């Protein structure tokens, strides 16, 4: 724990250095780089140790604040999230230095670096806190820091709107967390997690309320459908490295909260598992369908976060059902898959957001239908983005495949287990549908951004991003490849997390053989080698012959123009046609043009109209308030008469 504390301190110090030396960016940013890197290394080491099986004693502080001692601890569940926070945090922080470099003149760049450091530090504290008070303080720090980062480009109205929605939603979530701890503790003065876990058995009603409040509070943070509406707004408005951190890690705090709730609460009742599974299925399918409809690359990626949160919830739901129906293997695999997918999604989603940032940086637009053929100009960005896309789709031999495979195993074992849990097997079919849709969506993104020809002429030829922006991408892509290649290295720690959440901390070793990570590693390595060997053979054989070059075949039409390239709208149209009932897409079709516009069914269809209705009602009430003395007297009189009538009707004397 000392190392983690040192790491957090170094990260905050790095931020302070960058902010204090903002006038001398060369010194300040070098110091930031060194201190931040050292802080992340210091924090990652104990996390890796705990995941490998070491134990770390808790730290208890006893400040003079109410609600019991401040406890901090590092168990496998905290460790896997700490790993995601620090590795992705470092990549985003380093990328941010280069990404914001050209804005030094007209924005408070040093303050942005400080806020990012505070955000990463707060995230680290959230996952190691073992008492309600430090957790809530860090949670609030996280919310405020990420709000300020979202509105960094506050001169744009869309950014201010997104920031307002974000700050309202995140505080609603925090309020629910207060409620959660209040109901849970039931008046007890000690709110450390040890005391909360040692609660006397709850009545079914109170236990149900606790679990439901936890689901809404953490679901808001995670962006689960129907609480996702703030997410694409905020993640699209923030600068790229902030979006990467938010989509990769900050929303995962909701997942952490759910898993920690299960740890502390004990076995949840079956209905909770079914609700989580259903929410996961809805988030997964709707997230990717909505993503398919987007033309703004950052909104598209943000909706994919909704989808992946859905996949993680499928794992948590399967795990909860395994616990509820007494199938330890299903439970451990489900929670393990959820934890592993959390880490994997943090890696590839931040990779994709940073890659999108480089594209926006180079071209000045985020409309994918204006872009095309960028692979020629930005080969490194294109290659790493391709790796991230294949990983998020869940293709072997990359990391997304490994975690989805673990979740699939849990669901399929549910199908063959017998009893009510068999129904969970159908979620495997939903997961397959999500995978198919995600493939369609990322083929669209990669194809339209990096392949083919530009769809509109850009002002200048796009240039490859600076090396300082490519290095974080390469690092994240390498992590995706390594995790995908050696499931044997990551599945056992994930099982350790899974068995901790399932309440069987010592059972992890017993499930190693069932999880079959060893033979899976043979498979992934064999696949990767076959691909490399085949490509080498193909290149060697092909090098002897000189291919001839020509224009793309267009039925004899020899001079294709950019306007003839297939657009993202057209590409997604057949699938969106099938899902038109839920896709929220408005289609504009004229004789020679076809375009689709995506609206969010929850935000634009429900919440904003409700808000406008409330405002109309309020303005009517305001007329009453500004009515002058005579109207007030009339109202007072009416109120007196009404109360008298009520009392008469109730049969009592005034």
């Amino acid at each position, binding site marked *: 724990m000392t190392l983690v504390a040192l790491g957090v301190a170094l990260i905050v110090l790095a931020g302070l250095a960058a902010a204090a030396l903002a006038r001398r960016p060369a010194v300040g940013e070098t110091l930031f780089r060194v201190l931040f890197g050292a802080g992340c290394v210091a924090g990652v080491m104990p996390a890796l140790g705990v995941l490998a099986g070491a134990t770390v004693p808790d730290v208890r502080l006893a400040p003079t604040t109410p609600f019991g001692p401040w406890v901090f601890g590092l168990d496998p569940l905290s460790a896997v999230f700490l790993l995601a926070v620090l590795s992705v945090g470092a990549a985003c922080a380093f990328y941010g230095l280069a990404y914001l470099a050209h804005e030094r003149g007209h924005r408070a760049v040093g303050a942005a670096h400080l806020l990012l450091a505070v955000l990463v530090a707060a995230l680290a504290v959230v996952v190691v806190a073992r008492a309600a008070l430090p957790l809530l303080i860090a949670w609030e720090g996280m919310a405020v820091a990420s709000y300020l980062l979202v509105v960094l480009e506050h001169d744009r109205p869309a950014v201010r709107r997104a920031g307002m929605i974000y700050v309202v939603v995140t505080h609603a979530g925090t309020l629910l967390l207060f409620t959660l701890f209040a109901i849970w503790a039931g008046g007890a003065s000690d709110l450390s997690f040890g005391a909360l876990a040692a609660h006397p058995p709850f009545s079914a009603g109170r236990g149900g309320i606790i679990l439901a409040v936890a689901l809404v509070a953490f679901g808001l943070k995670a962006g689960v459908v129907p609480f996702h509406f703030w997410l694409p707004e905020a993640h699209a408005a923030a600068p790229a490295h902030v979006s990467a951190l938010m989509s990769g890690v900050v929303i995962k705090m909701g997942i952490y909260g759910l898993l920690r709730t299960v740890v502390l609460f004990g076995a949840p009742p079956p209905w909770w598992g079914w609700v989580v599974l259903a929410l996961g299925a809805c988030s997964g399918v709707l997230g990717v369908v909505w993503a398919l409809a987007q033309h703004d690359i950052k909104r598209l990626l943000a909706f994919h976060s909704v989808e992946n949160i859905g996949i993680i919830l499928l794992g948590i739901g399967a795990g909860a059902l395994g616990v509820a129906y007494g199938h330890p293997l299903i439970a451990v695999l489900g929670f393990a898959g959820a934890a592993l997918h959390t880490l994997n999604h943090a890696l590839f989603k931040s990779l994709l957001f940073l890659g999108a940032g480089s594209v926006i940086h180079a071209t000045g637009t985020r409309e994918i239908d204006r872009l095309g053929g960028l692979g020629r100009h930005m080969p490194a960005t294109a290659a790493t983005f391709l790796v991230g896309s294949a990983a998020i789709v869940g293709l072997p031999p990359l990391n997304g495949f490994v975690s989805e495979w673990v979740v699939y195993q849990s669901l399929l074992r549910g199908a063959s287990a017998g009893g009510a849990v068999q129904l969970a*097997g159908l979620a495997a079919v939903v997961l397959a549908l999500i*995978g*198919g849709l995600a493939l369609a969506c990322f083929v669209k993104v990669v194809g339209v951004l990096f392949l083919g020809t530009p769809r509109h002429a850009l002002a200048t030829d796009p240039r490859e991003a600076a090396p300082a922006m490519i290095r974080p991408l390469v690092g994240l892509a390498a992590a995706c490849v390594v995790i995908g290649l050696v499931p044997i290295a990551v599945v056992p720690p994930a099982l350790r997390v899974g068995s901790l959440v399932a309440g069987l901390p010592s059972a992890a070793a017993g499930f190693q053989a069932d999880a079959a990570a060893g033979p899976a590693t043979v498979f992934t390595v064999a696949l990767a080698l076959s691909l490399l060997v*085949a490509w080498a053979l193909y290149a060697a054989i092909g090098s002897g012959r000189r291919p001839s070059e020509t224009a793309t075949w267009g039925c004899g039409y020899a001079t294709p123009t950019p306007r003839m390239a297939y657009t993202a709208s057209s*590409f997604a149209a057949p699938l969106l046609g*099938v899902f038109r009932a839920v896709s929220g897409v408005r289609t504009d079709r004229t004789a020679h043009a076809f375009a689709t516009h995506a609206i969010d069914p929850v935000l634009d269809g429900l919440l904003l109209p409700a808000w406008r209705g409330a405002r109309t009602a309020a303005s009517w009430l305001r007329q009453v308030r500004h009515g002058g003395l005579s109207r007030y007297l009339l109202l007072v009189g009416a109120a007196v008469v009404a109360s008298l009538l009520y009392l008469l009707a109730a049969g009592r004397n005034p």
Partner: protein
Amino acid sequence: MSGAGLIALGILALVAPALPGIAGKTKSLLTGRRGPPVLQPYADLRKLLRKRAVYSRTTTWVFRAGPVAMLVTLVVAALLVPLDGRAAPVRFSGDLVAFAGLLALGRFALVLAGLDTGSSFEGLGASREVTIATFAEPTLFLCFIALVLATGDLSLSGMLGTPLAAAWPRAGASLSLVGISLFVLLLAENSRVPVDDPATHLELTMIHEVMVLDHGGPDLALILYGGALKLALFGVLVVSVFVPRAGFAGPAALALLFAGLGVVAVGVGVVESVMARLRLARVPQLLVGAAALALFATILQVG
């Protein structure tokens, strides 16, 4: 890895191109034509392999990598399938997910290769291909779930191997439905009538063919061979469900498999002769219908 399994894989790789040939010959005979010989696909491959490639100036390495990656994924996927009816060379719990993942990886590579040309034709084909695949994948999983329920095993070697033979007396009706559903998937995944027509000559009506319109020479040979291998692989799934071969000696089991593959190829030809292809908007309905069959197969076993 077993030597016998690899030999079986080698034979499958050799005979795979004959399957489209058999399907084509069946169709020709049923429609009153003589048609090209059954071994015509081999001659086509030989011709294409000797040609020089022509690449569009728009394309990059992605265009060339697509066919290679597709072929590799199919070969590795074949390693997961128990060709001898007992056990595959590579098997592990949940390898059915890997099988589906490999098909997806091959599709991912080939669709991107198509989009790399920047042509509207390839964009159109790619869009249709992924739309159909989106509905094929859940159907495949429903079939697998029915097989998992029948055999209690999470690997293809178990689902299609020894435990399957024991499951037939118990769950025969359900397994027949799974087999039919897999046959529909075979038609859809391999771009056959009624989903796609390999014989069509108009780019706008094509699906798979138009996606690989710009590939020629050796690259097209890889794609055509990969297509034949994919047909063979799905054929193996169908045959394995209908004819569990665990009780036969190795050579007999293989002979049975290849005879079964021949029957499947004839079946594909018969379907192509008696049906027109469906309107594109109806294809998802066909696949959802196949999924409903597989779901029914699953429910039969739960009850």
